[in-house]
């Protein structure tokens, strides 16, 4: 028997809420799932068992929301990367969990290109802010943002004013590696996967589609690529940084020297200080392959990660292989993979799950969450063994984040 909260059950329109079975162990902490879509944003507040979900939204109805993130340092500040079909991109922030929103006074924007015929690099325009990452726990109110086309920005005042990293955005070599808009993903090339080492606020990673994975050890004053071992499309030279297309990179909280990557050309792991990625996706079933977009790490076990494969054959449908959605988990660092599809549709489900649209909470057992471009929000309360639908009929889902309420 499905159970819904009183609020969601009485809604005349909008996403429907569904229940899942009781968990083996009842976590006492509460999760809020932040859903960013092409037409607005929603917050799903879970009860203590993650069994029922109270719907809060829409926020920014009709706005294109690429990312919605809760600040883990205060548990109440939200940042939303927004734009509309007509208006330029901006970032909104809320300090009361979305009851009120304020717009950035200086949104992420590239430097104005110098006028004149001698300009070697044309000026660029931020189409949208794509990725938001809170800075280190010891840097309250500081955030990083990645944009499309590729740009890196930082705010030190809670998302109100954003400053560009010229070392990336205006560097001739990086501009070469970024390529043009035509070299990027269908909805624009992106800078994403901005990662802060939890042990060291000056140690950063970021990735570009296209343009490779990069590391900074000086808080972004300089960056250097880390692409050794990563493959590129057949026939191209992997030594050329521009050809690398990391889709999503995640650092393991329990072992910050280990990162995992879902790439256009496979699934990888790297154990620092090594500079070489290892393609652990070779161990995935051949009929499924190791192409996809999201990469989800376990909060306490660096050997455990989840992926959600997409069809990367022929013309790249970017849908669940054979129309059968399924997550895959490894619990041994990528040596072996197990399919997890209990509760998911068994056929004719041509899902696409974008790189920001799958995530995990930090409870025990870990909850997994994913959103589809067809507007369905699914979750598992037992680390992927059993899946249930939380909501349907949402707009195209761009990003899903899970955060804990205080």
């Amino acid at each position: 028997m499905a159970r819904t909260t009183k609020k969601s059950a009485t809604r005349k329109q909008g996403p429907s809420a569904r229940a899942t079975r009781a968990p083996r162990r009842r976590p006492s902490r509460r999760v809020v799932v932040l859903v960013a879509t092409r037409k607005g944003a929603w917050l799903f507040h879970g009860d203590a068992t993650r069994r029922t979900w109270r719907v809060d939204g829409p926020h920014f109805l009709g706005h294109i929301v690429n990312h919605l993130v809760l600040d883990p340092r205060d548990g109440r500040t939200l940042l939303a990367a927004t734009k509309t079909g007509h208006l330029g991109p901006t970032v909104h922030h809320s300090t009361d969990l979305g009851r009120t929103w304020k717009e950035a006074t200086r949104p992420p924007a590239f430097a104005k290109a110098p006028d004149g015929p001698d300009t070697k690099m044309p000026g660029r325009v931020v189409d949208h802010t794509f990725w938001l990452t809170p800075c280190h726990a010891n840097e309250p109110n500081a955030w990083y943002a990645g944009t499309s086309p590729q740009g890196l920005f930082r705010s030190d005042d809670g998302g109100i004013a954003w400053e560009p990293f010229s070392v990336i955005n205006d560097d001739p070599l990086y501009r070469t590696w970024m390529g043009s808009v035509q070299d990027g993903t269908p909805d624009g090339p992106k800078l994403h996967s901005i990662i802060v080492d939890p042990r060291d606020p000056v140690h950063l990673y970021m990735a570009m589609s296209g343009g490779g994975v990069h590391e900074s050890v000086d808080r972004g004053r300089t960056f250097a690529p880390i692409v050794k071992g990563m493959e590129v499309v057949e026939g191209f030279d992997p030594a050329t940084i521009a050809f690398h297309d990391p889709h999503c990179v995640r650092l393991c909280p329990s072992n910050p020297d280990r990162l995992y990557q879902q790439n256009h050309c496979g699934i990888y792991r790297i154990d620092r200080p090594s500079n070489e990625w290892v393609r652990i996706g070779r161990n995935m079933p051949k009929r499924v392959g190791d192409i996809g977009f999201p990469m989800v790490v376990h909060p306490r076990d660096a050997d455990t990660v989840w992926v959600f494969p997409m069809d990367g054959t022929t013309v790249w449908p970017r849908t669940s292989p054979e129309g059968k959605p399924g997550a895959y988990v490894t619990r041994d660092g990528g040596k072996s993979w197990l399919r997890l599809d209990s509760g998911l549709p068994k056929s004719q489900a041509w899902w696409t799950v974008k790189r920001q649209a799958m995530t995990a909470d930090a409870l025990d057992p870990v909850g997994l969450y994913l959103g589809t471009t067809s507007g369905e929000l699914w979750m598992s309360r037992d680390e992927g063994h059993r899946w249930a639908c939380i909501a349907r009929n949402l707009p195209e889902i761009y990003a899903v984040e899970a955060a804990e309420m205080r």
Partner: protein
Amino acid sequence: MKVLIPGPLLSYTKKREVEAAGATITELLADLDRQYPGFRFRVIDEQDKMRPHIRFFVNGEQVFDMTHSLRPTDELQIVQALSGG
């Protein structure tokens, strides 16, 4: 001069018609941004170009030149062009 505001920008002005001053469209937008912070960047990008789905009409005539001269008696209409579903 009178400025007619399209729906997507009403979150800034709260009304369909506002008054703003400027000898050119560039100056007029600067005044609008002073009155309604953030307004300009939503319609003009960081390279000072009109955003793809924004259009300006002065006294009913479409204008693309941001240095177009304006008189206090002119009327500027900001229009949201088609941008897909």
